[in-house]
């Protein structure tokens, strides 16, 4: 006769890492709270009170989350319109998107807003599996130029022009 043993749920490693991150965050706020200088003449509740409160509370939450993760309790990923919540994480997409953001940061000052934004547009579109990259570049360039003109001419804000002669 087979006995069904209630198996232990496996440790939720991802959640555990995040929980440790929360503990780390609490620790960061704690050491930051110690660094806040308090003038001895200030007699009321000082600027350290809330930071200490937040830090300790975060440490407590982090501890609870660690315990939950060790017990195998997972956080429920959010549902959203374009999301398939059961799919595994698409790391390639994340890396491509991250890369697009970094490129955007690097190009913004030297290349200018239009160039940087077009690159960003292309990068994100590729991360979302856009096959027609030429279309993405054209739309990105058009959109960036339109925004650039609208903001600098109509609204009077300044954006870096970079290498584009506008």
């Amino acid at each position, binding site marked *: 006769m087979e006995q069904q043993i209630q198996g232990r749920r496996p440790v939720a490693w991802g959640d555990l890492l995040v929980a440790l991150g929360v503990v780390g965050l609490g620790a960061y706020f704690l050491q930051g709270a110690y660094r806040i200088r308090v003038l001895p003449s200030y007699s009321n509740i000082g600027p350290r009170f809330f930071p200490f409160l937040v830090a300790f509370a975060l440490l407590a939450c982090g501890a609870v989350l660690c315990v939950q993760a060790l017990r195998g309790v997972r956080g429920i990923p959010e549902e959203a*319109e374009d999301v398939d919540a059961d799919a595994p994480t698409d790391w390639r997409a994340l890396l491509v998107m991250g890369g697009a953001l970094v490129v955007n940061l690097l190009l913004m000052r030297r290349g200018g807003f239009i160039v940087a934004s077009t690159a960003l547009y292309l990068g994100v579109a590729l991360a979302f599996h856009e096959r027609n990259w030429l279309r993405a570049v054209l739309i990105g360039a058009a959109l960036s130029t339109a925004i650039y003109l609208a903001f600098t001419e109509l609204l009077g804000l300044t954006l870096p022009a970079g290498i584009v002669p506008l």
Partner: protein
Amino acid sequence: MLETLEALAHGFSIALSWQNVLWALAGVTLGTMVGILPGIGPALTVALLLPVTFNLDPIASFIMFAGIYYGGMYGGSTTSILLNTPGESASIITAIEGNQMARRGRGAAALATAAIGSFVAGTIATVALTFVAPVMVRVGLAFGPADYFALMILAFTTVTAVLGSSLARGLTSLLFGIGLGMVGIDLQSGQARYTLGSLELLDGINVITVAVGLFAVGETFYVASRLRRGNQKVEAIKGSIWMNREEWSRSWRPWLRGALLGFPLGSLPAGGAEIPTFLSYTIEKRLSKNPEEFGKGAIEGVAGPEAANNSAAAGVLVPLLTLGIPTSATAAIMLAAFQQFGLQPGPLLFQRAPDLVWGLIASLYVGNAMLLVLNLPLVGMWVRLLTIPRPLLYAGILVFATLGVYSLSNSIVDLITLYAIGVVGFLMRRFGFPVAPAVIGMILGPLAEQQFRRALAISQGDYSVFFTRPLSLTLMIVAALALLVPVALDMRAKRKGRTVEVDD
């Protein structure tokens, strides 16, 4: 009562100037658009527009923001009816019945009942807002710092206890937000906190950067990581937009019930529109003469919840305008908008800037009417938006997000912060941490700290002041209940579940 009507009439004279009507139109159009599009919502839109409206007239800006807020609700229901996968939890109910109706060829009737119901409920709720606001203002004037602090604690507990999958996660999100809000110079003592020796951080972290990072960048990372493959089926709009007599007769009572349910629940610091819509659905199902239709396209299941949703949205404006307490992420962003213009919503706002407040309230009526026109006859146009290819859409969202934050102070550091917060936003969504408490915490946290310290300064260090003032004590007790009751119910449910397992 007469004063209120006079104030409202004055407000109309402001709201009906042709410029403000155009601003209202811009707002509701934009709101409907972002309500329909995935990945972008009213909170994010207002956050992105804040830098742009900096130099504009505050009344015009707020009329536009309010239009975006209401428009977002209308647009959201269009999406849930025509597409089976709604974004926000408040739209899930509409999706259940509305999408079923669409599949059975009655999509147009579903859209009509949603739009008309939203208009009816929105108008009723705005009337309620008009008359409740002055009363709340008088109540608010009696609030001392200790009471305000207790009220903010209540807002914190309801936001963390209701939203999100677990209390620890909601609390972590809230604390993260409060922590971010603490960066910078402490106004009361002049000391720098968490600035890492950087001059830039002395001013604190801009709430727009955080909001855009959490909403736009974080959401885009998350969707990229789990993109739904294959095109979703957009139901064609069949049937006549003009509902037939039976549909009208089955709709009007749910509209009224939804309106009555949504407004009070929306105005309580109870975190959003989910409770009213779920309640409305349950009530309509119980009261319906055709309960077996529920789940297959019962029109009451669209009429009631949509009405509740919209009147709850108006309800949220009550604590925001009269007490300065935001009860949802969008409300928190609107509070940040007020702060940006140097205004503090609350009882004093009604006295100091009556033009703004009453102009805003009057324009809500105008906006509601515009939305009805926009969403019924023109719905075919909006539906095209649903077919925008996702790669192009999200790429555009990120370009706008980058632009919005960069234009704040032309600083690369802002962009780095934006993207870093975006990564945090991704992690939060992936691991089930609710995002709204972080935004509310960041905006409300500093205010709460201020009130706390003021209260203690006045009572000269006596902590019991929070429990001896009757108002403060009541609010604290309610806050404690809001926190403990769900936990207790949860534990009871788990214990019951376990006994069932053992018996097997």
